[in-house]
């Protein structure tokens, strides 16, 4: 059971912090120019954070397929990344990933 005070403290701090992050550049957009260098630094943020979330999530997942050493989620995420790279289509990528995982784990 999550303690009430603990929960609300997390939610309050996370809510305020997240809003400040979202507001950061918008708030000062008419005060100073965002240079190309700023933009370049910002452009690395998703690449620096998202793989650190996703890769361990799929890498350490214990699956059922012996021939993939239980790493079918890792295998499918690599395929889905390729689909996303070539199609640039969100719907296609997510559907492809879910369907491929289903087929792999239930039919083969």
């Amino acid at each position, binding site marked *: 059971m999550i303690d009430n005070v603990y929960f609300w403290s997390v939610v309050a701090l996370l809510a305020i*912090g997240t809003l400040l992050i979202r507001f950061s550049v918008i708030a000062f957009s008419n005060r100073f120019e965002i240079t190309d260098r700023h933009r370049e630094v910002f*452009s690395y943020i998703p690449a620096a954070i998202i793989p*650190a979330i996703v890769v361990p999530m799929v890498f350490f997942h214990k699956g059922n397929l012996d021939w993939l050493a239980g790493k079918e989620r890792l295998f499918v995420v690599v395929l*889905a990344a390729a689909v996303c790279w070539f199609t640039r289509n969100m719907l296609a990528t997510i559907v492809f990933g879910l369907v491929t*995982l289903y087929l792999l784990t239930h039919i083969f």
Partner: protein
Amino acid sequence: MLPVMTGVIPFGAVMGTAAHEAGLSVWHSTWMNVLVFAGASQLAAVDLMTKNVSLLVVVATGLVINLRFILYSAAFSPFAREAGWGTKLLSAYMLTDQSYAVMSANEAHFRNKQDALTFYFGSCVCMAIAWHLSVLAGFYFGNFSPRDWALDYAVPLSFVVLVIPTLKTWKHRAVAVCSGVFGILFRDLPLNVGLLVAAFCAMAVALLLMRLAGLTKSVRGAR
């Protein structure tokens, strides 16, 4: 809009299920959803809270996950430049991965800034409705898909969809690879600070690469 929603709905269902399984009431879950309004960080925070991780680490992890909103804030700022503080604050609150994706996909179609803002708020409201409803559905019906469908797999997939389009240069790709490797290496760090450390190291790699690329450019220029 539709392709974006397909990412939101399973994600919301997973979030609702996680909140329910963590023993949160629908009241707690909904307030968290409305106040924080950032699924990935909420999912991580709920997970860490069930492990009773220290307050500071839970909040810091959630905020690091949400640092990507700086990029979205920068991308959106030209549209909100002349708007009032209320509009600015509301548009900031509504910034999500999906609204960013929708805006950058439709950038060419806007006739003026007012047009863009109207489109933005319209799409954000649709997104918010889909999000809140799918979290509620997840909360009450658990994983409402057939049991053998691994709906939770939609979470890593939706992250893949977010990161791939940002890997425009070899430097971005290198940073992404480093981030993934750091994520694995630092997973077992004490206090669950693995993600924090991995993200900061990957960002350091990015700054280093920028500097190196800048140096080689100036060396070439001097010749």
